[in-house]
Structure formats: structure tokens, C-alpha cells
């Protein structure tokens, strides 16, 4: 179990987060660049100091600072934390072969069978004598992942590890890491600014902005019921239209819009088409309804300048940006 209740001072703001990740659980920290996600990983890894907070892993206190309780500050150095960190740059040691990289950790058992098994699982068994410079980006990430697995870390921290890879390879490696993390039953924390990566990987999603965790929950719950308008913006709501009640707005997610009027399923909005373009297997259209503008996906190009759509079961937000929990009647 990983428990982190941390406050870290940065130049621009203070990062605050309280997270618990159970053994075998995968949590994704999702948010825009500069939100403070990596700072939290580095705090867990012991690479940055805390202004205040506690980091515990498997019952061991790794960091305790400014809490005013207990036996005073604790700062277990990174080399004794048994925490594995995989970044976007796989960080292979360029002067060592793949095999030497894999078995680099002191905690890596000199067990040829385990090395062979993990290499086979990662599909790198033929690369063991090669030098890292000879590997493709995907292969380097596999080796870096294998190195963490052989190190028998008590927690896995993944900092946008596959962000530089193409979408197909990213999906493959994300699935691989997901399986391996589940097998190892260690707490795993993924940092990403790609919602699709977070959804594909995580049991729970923590949405961060400006150093604060805004919402934590199951990925579909966070996407379908964002707690704040800001969360909605971050998880892909591309417009907010006025609801019947004054002061309330409904969030419009482009994927949760149906062409035509169906008041039983959601909020019906008629808007003027101000732009349209092919998108994936369908079309994406920008609509304006009164002062509000929003984007939605349609099965085909808009038939006219005026389009009526149904925003399916949208979340409603009050003037303070919080989601309105109670039912809002559909106008």
C-alpha cells in the first residue's frame, strides 16, 4: 500500500496531494502539463523534498516532514526506497549492454531463469547482448521496464513513459505494463496528460490542475460525472451551454452527443454550424447556440447551417464551477 500526503513547494505554486494506492492497484495522475503530477512522483521517489507531508510504502515511512508529530523528520534516501521510476526517457545506461542494464539493480537476483522469463515476457530475449543505442524506442522502454521488474521494486512510478511512442506501440506497452503490474501486485502510479492512456491503464483516475487534486474516482465516473467544470474541461468537454435554470450550464462532451432531438435522453440544443471537418470515421462540428459554443461529433457532415443535437445526460455546473448533484430538469 502506498500512502502519500504531500505538499511540495514549486516556484509557481505549491503542489498538494493526498493519495492512497493499494497493492496491485493502478492509479493515474491525469492533468495538463505543469500541473504538478511529476512533482508528486518525485516526492514519492525521494527526489524532491517536502514542505510538509508523509510518504509511506508497505508500512515503511519513507518521508515525514513538517507534520509536527512522531519522531521528527524522516527522509529515506532514494537508494533505500525500493521504488521504481520509469520516465519518458527510458534512461538506459548507454555504456552497458541490455543484459547488464536489466541486472543493474543490487536487488536484481542473479537468477538466469528469472532474467530469461522476463526477457521473454517483454519480447527482448534476442537483444540481451545488444547495446542500448541499437534499440528502437519501444525496445528501450521494454528493457527499462524489465530492469524495474528485475529490481523487485515495492512500487512502480510511471512518468508518461510511452508519450513519445506512436499510438499503437503505446497501447501495446500500456497493456503490457498493466498486466505486469497486476502480476507483481505492487501499487502503481502513472502520470499522463493523455486521457486515453489513463483510462486504458488505471483503476482510478486522479485529475490534477495547478498543483491540486481536483477529483479522484473510477475513470468512467470522472469522465461522465466531473465534479468541477475545470475537471470537465480537462477530461474533454469542449463546450458549456446554458441549462433551463438560470446560472447553470451543461457540459458538452463531443462523444456524448446524438444527432437530432431526443429530450428523453438529454439536453436538446439547436445551434448554428460555424465549422465542420472530418474526424475519425465521422465528422466534428463546431456549433454556436446563443453565446455558447461547443464541439460535437456527428456521423456525417452537417446537412444545413442549423443543427439540432441531443447532449446525452450531461453534467450541470453552478456558477461556482461545481457540479450540481440533483437532477436538473431538461428544458
Amino acid at each position, binding site marked *: 500500500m502506498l500512502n502519500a500526503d504531500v505538499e511540495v513547494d514549486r516556484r509557481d505554486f505549491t503542489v498538494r496531494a493526498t493519495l492512497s494506492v493499494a497493492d496491485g492497484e493502478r492509479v493515474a495522475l491525469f492533468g495538463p502539463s505543469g500541473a504538478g503530477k511529476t512533482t508528486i512522483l518525485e516526492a514519492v521517489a525521494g527526489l524532491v523534498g517536502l514542505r510538509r507531508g508523509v510518504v509511506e510504502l508497505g508500512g515503511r515511512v519513507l518521508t515525514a516532514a513538517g507534520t509536527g508529530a512522531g519522531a521528527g523528520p524522516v527522509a529515506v534516501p532514494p537508494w533505500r526506497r525500493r521504488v521504481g521510476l520509469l520516465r519518458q526517457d527510458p534512461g538506459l545506461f548507454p555504456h552497458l549492454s541490455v543484459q547488464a542494464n536489466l541486472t543493474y*539493480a543490487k*536487488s536484481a537476483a542473479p537468477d538466469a531463469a528469472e532474467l530469461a522469463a522476463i526477457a521473454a515476457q517483454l519480447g527482448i530475449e534476442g537483444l540481451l547482448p545488444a*547495446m542500448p543505442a*541499437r534499440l528502437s524506442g519501444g525496445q528501450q522502454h521494454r528493457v527499462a521496464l524489465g530492469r524495474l521488474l528485475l529490481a523487485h521494486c515495492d512500487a512502480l512510478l510511471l512518468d508518461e513513459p510511452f508519450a513519445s511512442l506512436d499510438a499503437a506501440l503505446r497501447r501495446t506497452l500500456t497493456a503490457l505494463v498493466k498486466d505486469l503490474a497486476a502480476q507483481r501486485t505492487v501499487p502503481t502510479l502513472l502520470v499522463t496528460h493523455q486521457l486515453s492512456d489513463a483510462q486504458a491503464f488505471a483503476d482510478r483516475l486522479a485529475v490534477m490542475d495547478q498543483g491540486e487534486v481536483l477529483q479522484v474516482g473510477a475513470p468512467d465516473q470522472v469522465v461522465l460525472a466531473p465534479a468541477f467544470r475545470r475537471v470537465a474541461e480537462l477530461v474533454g468537454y469542449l463546450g458549456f451551454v446554458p441549462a433551463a435554470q438560470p446560472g447553470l450550464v451543461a457540459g458538452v462532451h463531443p462523444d456524448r452527443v446524438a444527432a437530432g432531438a431526443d429530450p428523453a435522453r438529454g439536453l436538446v440544443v439547436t445551434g448554428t454550424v460555424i465549422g465542420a471537418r472530418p474526424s475519425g470515421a465521422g465528422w466534428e462540428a463546431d456549433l454556436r447556440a446563443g453565446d455558447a459554443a461547443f464541439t460535437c461529433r456527428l456521423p456525417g457532415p452537417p446537412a444545413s447551417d442549423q443543427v439540432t443535437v441531443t447532449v446525452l445526460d450531461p453534467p450541470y455546473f453552478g456558477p461556482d464551477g461545481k457540479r450540481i448533484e440533483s437532477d436538473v430538469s431538461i428544458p
Partner: protein
Amino acid sequence: MITLLIHLSPGDIASALTGAGDLDPLVTSLESGGLTLLVLVLVGTPLAWMLARGRLPLPRVWEAGLLCTLLLPPLVIGLLLVFMVGPYTPIGEFLGWLHQDATNTFLALVIAQVYEAAPYYVLGAQAAFAGVDTRLEEQAGLLGDRPFRVFWRVTLPLAAPGLSMALATAWARAMGAFGAVVIIAYHPFGLPLQIFTTLQETGLATALPYALVLLVVALPLPLAAYAWSARAERRRRG
């Protein structure tokens, strides 16, 4: 080298170098050069690492100090060394208490060579360390290595090609050191001073063989460093 060979016959070389004690300057240069390298490695390497990692207070002051020894004519360095370690200075008196003397001794020769060669090694080594990605060191730490082990297993091997080049340059500078040496360490003669005095006393024909000896003994180390550095880079590229 080619010019030297054109102007030297085997007979000139043999007659200049086969007398008793003719090769003493060579031995002096090799010994003092070797000791200079040892001092530079032991003192200059940690200094360069601390400069590269920002672990020293006022780093610009340290860098300016190194650059001063590079910018000043070696002759001036020799004069300043007299003021620093001469017999009537606190350091000189301390050395005297230890029955040592830092003028016109082997120790003085090493001190002069160290001062002339240090900036070449330290600035080169600083660049080599700065070129090592600190995230690799961080990763090694997270994999369980203590800082010294990280230095030994990651930092040093990755900086080694640059360090060897810096050391080769420093060696070349130490072997050819003349300006500071002629002021503070006129005796014992190393090869550069032997060339100078022989030229003054008996002329070019007898001085040039020593220049050839200097080249022949000083070149292999830098050449080996170049070759090793290139081999390390090739190995890294797989």
C-alpha cells in the same frame, strides 16, 4: 615531427643522446609528468565533478581562477608561484619546516607543471562530467546504488572518454611546460629546459634531438587516449 626528422640525422641523435647523463632530463620529465597527472587526477577530478554538479559555492570564482592560470603567460605564473611558495612565504616556510623546498627542486618542477596543466584537465573534466545525464545517476540511485557507487558505475564510465582526453591534454601541457618552470624550477632539468639550455650552450644541432625525444615520449599517451576514447564511443554505439 617531420621537420625535426628532416633536420636530424641518426648520427646527430646518437651523438646527442648517448653520453653519460644525457637521458636524465627524459627521466626527470617522465617522473614529474607522471606525478603531475596523479595530482591532477586525485585533486582535479573531484573539483571538476563538484563544478559540473554545482556543488561548490561561488562556482564562477573557481572557474575564473582556473581561467586565470590559462590566460596568464606561463612566465607570470612562475613569478606568482615564487610569491606563493617561495622560501620566504608562509607556505615556503612550512615546506622548509618539512625539509622541503619549492624552488629549484623536483617538487618545484611538479608544482609548476601542475599549475600549467591544471586548467586543461579540470575544465575538460568538468565538461565531461557535465555531459553525463543526471537522470541516469538518479535512475541508478533508485535502483539501489549509493552515491559513490553511482559515481563508480555510471558517472565515471560515461565521463571516461572526456576525462581521458582532458588528461591527455594536461599530460601534453605538463611535458611541454616551460614558462613557469624556468622561473621556479630551473633545476633539475626536464626536457623543455634541457632543449633551452642546450640550444644556448651548444646550438641547434644538439638541442633538436631532445625535442624529438620529447615528442616521442609525450605523444603515445595522448594518442592512446584518443584511440581508447574513440573505441569507447564505438562500443557505446554498438
